């Protein structure tokens, strides 16, 4: 076995910002004062926030030390299922920071911002081409924001027809945000169970779909990493009852250049630019969750829309049936730039990216299914889901396996999700991991499976290499301390 990457280096401690510095130190080059002071009325003036005064070196050391306690995609393989932690190309960071983009005021007159408007217009066009759905909004700031946009469109669609529908079908393999997004728009979620193959059966949907039901929210490929192969039939059933089909496109990385969402019967789809289109996750954001819809739902998209007329690009608010606005301006434009750069760099090779993502997942599935229980033993898409069933006799759980992986130098997979699988370990390698790093990851998991049998305490006590051991989440929640 090759040497694992996990090892222990020098880890420095670092106090809080406010435990450092001294009043009067500064880290900011104060701009020249070229006007006279003009005091505000006393009754308006406060004491100012109790912030520490730091030097530039104080600040640099602080955040440099903090950064070393983090694991990112640049640190190592990050096979977090459903999150598509692919490599974030460096050039895209540079593109987003070009002064013409980074310094652009959102209320510039159209003639002074043709560059960004063209970029947005073309990105919409590319996303339409990739999904097969012709009309796109870039405004939602994240996947969940995209879901909310989709549900607002559902609501507006039925309102325009003078119908009030109260329910929505949500499969048990859906993302957890789906019911919350639907609830914000007044839809009660009706769970739909997946079958023994891990996908939805059309009969099950036919049973539940009625004229009180607005439609279905379906994740495809689903959270088990399986393609919902009955999608077209299911969409037919939903449409026959006047409903709409919403697809959560979080897993689009499996099917670019292969599946046509429109042909599959999908009416609305959200994408996660921070997953499929390689923009960084930023430790939790900013993301971007564009929504793509069919031609007849286009009129409901949020305002403003970018239009192209007589060679000029403009923003229009003249959309009387629009659901309105979800963001102060036009969404996370800085993230959109990176996705646009990525698409231009990849072109039609995006299909190859999907193919390799699926190849990597199937390879891992085949290599590991002898040591970890595979609840659905069939060809998977971009991710595969194992459980801790084989490790039960040694009192080793999914959590222990995940924590032990850290000691070997890997970020753990998504754990205990999807809920339909007990003790799930959901592995999504993405296409940017080479066979070399995947082989190392497989070797690590095999070694861990062996440890589980022979010395389970190594797993119970893991992790040992990171800065921290396991943290007490109970104390954190019982006696919340959210600020220092």
């Amino acid at each position, binding site marked *: 076995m090759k040497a694992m990457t996990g090892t222990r280096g020098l880890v420095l401690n*670092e106090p809080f910002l406010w435990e450092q510095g001294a009043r009067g130190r500064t880290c900011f080059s104060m701009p020249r004062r070229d006007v006279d002071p003009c005091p505000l009325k006393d009754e308006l003036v406060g004491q100012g926030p109790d912030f520490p005064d730091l030097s530039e070196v104080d600040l640099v050391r602080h955040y440099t030390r903090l950064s070393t306690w983090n694991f990112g995609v640049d640190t190592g393989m990050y096979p977090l299922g459903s999150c598509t932690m692919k490599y974030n190309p460096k050039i895209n960071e540079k593109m987003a920071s070009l002064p013409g983009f980074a310094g652009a005021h959102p209320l510039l007159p159209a003639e002074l911002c043709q560059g960004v408007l063209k970029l947005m217009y073309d990105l919409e066009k590319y996303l339409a081409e990739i999904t097969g759905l012709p009309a796109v909004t870039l405004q939602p700031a994240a996947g969940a924001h995209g879901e909310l946009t989709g549900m607002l469109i559902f609501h507006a669609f039925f309102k325009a027809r003078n119908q009030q529908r109260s329910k929505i079908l949500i499969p048990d393999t859906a993302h957890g945000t789906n019911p919350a997004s639907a609830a914000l728009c007044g839809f009660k979620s009706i769970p739909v169970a997946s079958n023994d193959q891990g996908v939805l059966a059309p009969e099950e949907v036919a049973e539940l779909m009625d004229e009180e039901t607005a439609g279905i929210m379906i994740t495809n490929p689903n959270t088990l990493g399986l393609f919902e192969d009955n999608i077209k039939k299911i969409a037919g059933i939903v449409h026959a009852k006047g409903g709409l089909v919403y697809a959560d496109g979080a897993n689009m990385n499996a099917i670019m250049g292969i599946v046509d969402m429109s042909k599959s019967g999908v009416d609305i789809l959200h994408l996660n630019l921070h997953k499929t289109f390689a923009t960084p996750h930023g430790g939790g954001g900013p993301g971007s969750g564009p929504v793509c819809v069919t031609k007849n739902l286009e009129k409901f998209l949020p305002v403003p829309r970018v239009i192209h007329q007589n060679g000029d690009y403009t923003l229009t608010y003249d959309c009387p049936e629009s659901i309105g606005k979800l963001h102060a301006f036009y969404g996370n434009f800085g993230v959109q730039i990176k996705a646009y750069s990525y698409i231009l760099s990849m072109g039609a090779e995006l299909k190859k990216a999907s193919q390799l993502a699926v190849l990597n997942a199937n390879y891992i599935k085949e290599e590991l299914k002898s040591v970890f229980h595979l609840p659905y033993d069939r060809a998977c898409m971009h991710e595969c889901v194992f459980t801790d069933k084989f490790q039960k006799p040694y009192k080793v759980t999914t959590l222990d396996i995940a924590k032990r992986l850290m000691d070997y130098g890997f970020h753990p997979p998504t754990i205990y999700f999807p809920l339909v699988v007990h003790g799930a370990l959901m592995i999504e390698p993405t296409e940017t991991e080479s066979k070399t790093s995947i082989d190392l990851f497989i070797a690590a998991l095999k070694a861990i499976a062996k440890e589980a049998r022979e010395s389970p305490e190594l797993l119970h006590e893991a992790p040992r290499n990171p800065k921290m051991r396991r943290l007490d989440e109970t104390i954190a929640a019982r006696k919340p301390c959210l600020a220092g």
Partner: protein
Amino acid sequence: MRYLPHTDEEIAAMLQKAGAMDLDDLFSGIPEDCRRGRDLDLPEPFTEWELNQHMAVLSGKMAVSPEYKIFLGAGSYEHYIPEVIKQLLARSEFYTAYTPYQPEISQGTLQAIYEYQTLTTRLLGLDVANASLYDGASGLAEALLMAIRITGRKKVAVAGSIHPFYRKVVQTYLAPTGCEIVEIPYLANGKTDLTRLPDLADLAGIAVQSPNFFGCIEDLDLIGREIHSDPKTLFVVTFTEPLAYGILKNPGSLGADIACGEGQSFGIPQSFGGPGLGMFAAKKRFMRNMPGRLVGKTKDENGNRGFVLTLATREQHIRREKATSNICSNQGLCATAAAMYMAALGRTGLRELARLNHDKAEYLKNQLQQAGFTIPFDTPTFNEFVVKFPAGFETTHKKLLAKKIVAGLDLSLYYPELIDHYLLSVTETSSKEDMDALIKEIQA
């Protein structure tokens, strides 16, 4: 393709293990009627060098500082961003990590967010702050939904002097809930008209922006006391320019139950309006009703101080349809940038910079007044203000664009009654020279 590491030999070996003939075979389970009829019609892949060129052309078509002198604010402010923040934020351990679900290897993100939460509570004068929301506008919508949840009431009021786009977002979020939104008019002095506050009895919350969209500093203290004549109604203070609280009294000390707004001014590039930062803080008793992620302090097995995501039971993945919000992320990197910015300035620097913004804006305001233009709202402002120009100023405004000056925002687009009224913003990036040039050109 440099982002796809597989060699042909490796692909062959992996296909064999996976039991597939070729790459297409991996997708044999996808029915024919769901497949694309043709290949992706996208431009030929750009080389890195072609991309550089292409993007230089696009970004070159933009009017930006310092070539242009842009006196626009209205929710997006031009502030200097210290290089140290850009460099630290570019550490990829921060930006290529995901939500810190595995705390043992995410302590960098977690402590950074805990510090952001702490500095935010200190800035806004409230007890608890979340790890941030998408932006100021959606933050305001979430605050009003929170007030509706807490009080069980179905009506909210928003001041007409709140940013028009923020009000539009509130409308969008509340549309399917059936809740009523009442708009409170503004007075001749640009402030919120307290006397016409609607019947408080059945209001879940009342939202006021300060400094408001016109730049005017509202009498939050007075408004708060009025609102709290019904102890159940929540007082929501929103803002687009947090730098103002470097010098002004903070919302918490003036009675706000929730303070939320846009944090872009704190070290985040304008980027055509996003990504921004939805700063959100509240009184402690509303902690469990707050939307968004929260980072809390705890200990590890060795008793060392550490941090975890906490109070997750409020969130969508556990409480599903009963969650406090559907949000499942934060603007992590933007929050980190804001924390760096607050720390870089410190109390002393923030105060000095806030004064400088105010004083420069006052300079331009006075110069315009001396040049004979009207300042219609007789109320103190921070770094933006409204000017009434003579009829037909539109033409002058256009002419100035050709001279690379953007002389503020035409307010009649959002307030039809404010014809020839323009909103001008001045920050530390505007020099006296720029402002003198603006006056000269307007008069020319």
